[in-house]
């Protein structure tokens, strides 16, 4: 299980690096979307690893609500590009 988590951290580092060196704002947004999904799935994995119901609930809430922020941000950035 720890090996699984290590591989997930490795997969998480790829979009972080991408967001660091990318200039185009939409590619950064893609990296952010990828990171948001990955972190919440990792929270779920940790909750199962520890058999902790409370962390699992938080992970599910972050997974379902956190993406709304992304869509808001995407629309605001689109409006910025228009003007």
């Amino acid at each position, binding site marked *: 299980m720890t090996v699984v988590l290590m591989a997930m951290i490795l997969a998480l580092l790829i979009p972080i690096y991408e967001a660091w060196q990318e200039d185009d704002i939409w590619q950064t947004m893609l990296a952010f979307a990828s990171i948001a999904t990955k972190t919440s799935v990792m929270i779920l994995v940790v909750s199962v690893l520890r058999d902790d119901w409370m962390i699992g609930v938080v992970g599910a809430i972050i997974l379902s609500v956190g993406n709304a922020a992304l869509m808001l*941000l995407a629309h605001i950035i689109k409006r910025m590009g228009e003007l």
Partner: protein
Amino acid sequence: MDSYIYIITALLPLTAGMVVLQVNPYHALIMRGILGAVAAMLYAVLGAADVALTEALVGTMLAITLYAVAVRSSLVMRLGVLQEEGMELGSNSFVEGKSKDHVQQLTNALRTLLAKHYMRLELACYPNPKALHQALLAKEVHATCAQPSQRITKESYENKQSTSLERYPYQTQIRVHRLYEILQTELSSLGTTLIDVDAVDAKDSTEGNP
């Protein structure tokens, strides 16, 4: 403690450093979102479920949205122009007048210059030169652009600028000193004369002119 906790903890200063070192404000906003997601994961892994939930909802969602609105409305330069010139900018019908051509050129140059500093240019139209000047004094716009013959010119300044007036028919008055400094460095590409209104007003008051 398991070893993966240390690695996840190391991600937090990494992303925080990315936020601090980012110069583009919009990219920094997205970096802040990444930092929020990583921080929420770290808090959940360390066992603080309530803190993680608050970080995800308030720190990521609310703060990012508010910051985005704030950055978008503050990084803008409002340029006041006269009505007929402003109308010409929106439409594609390019009249063969030299003045319209000039305003178009000037706004394009301003846009590319401001884009280097991650700012936008917003045009505000006013019906006559008097309203334009009033708007500048009332701080509705950051700068105005018009032909100097149309505006209330000060005699003491006409002498000094008579040489440059022949080269550039348009004159830009800027209220914000920092903007004036930024634009002054690239003055040659703009094709206009720049006047720092703050300095003008200060000098007027010392001279005793209304």
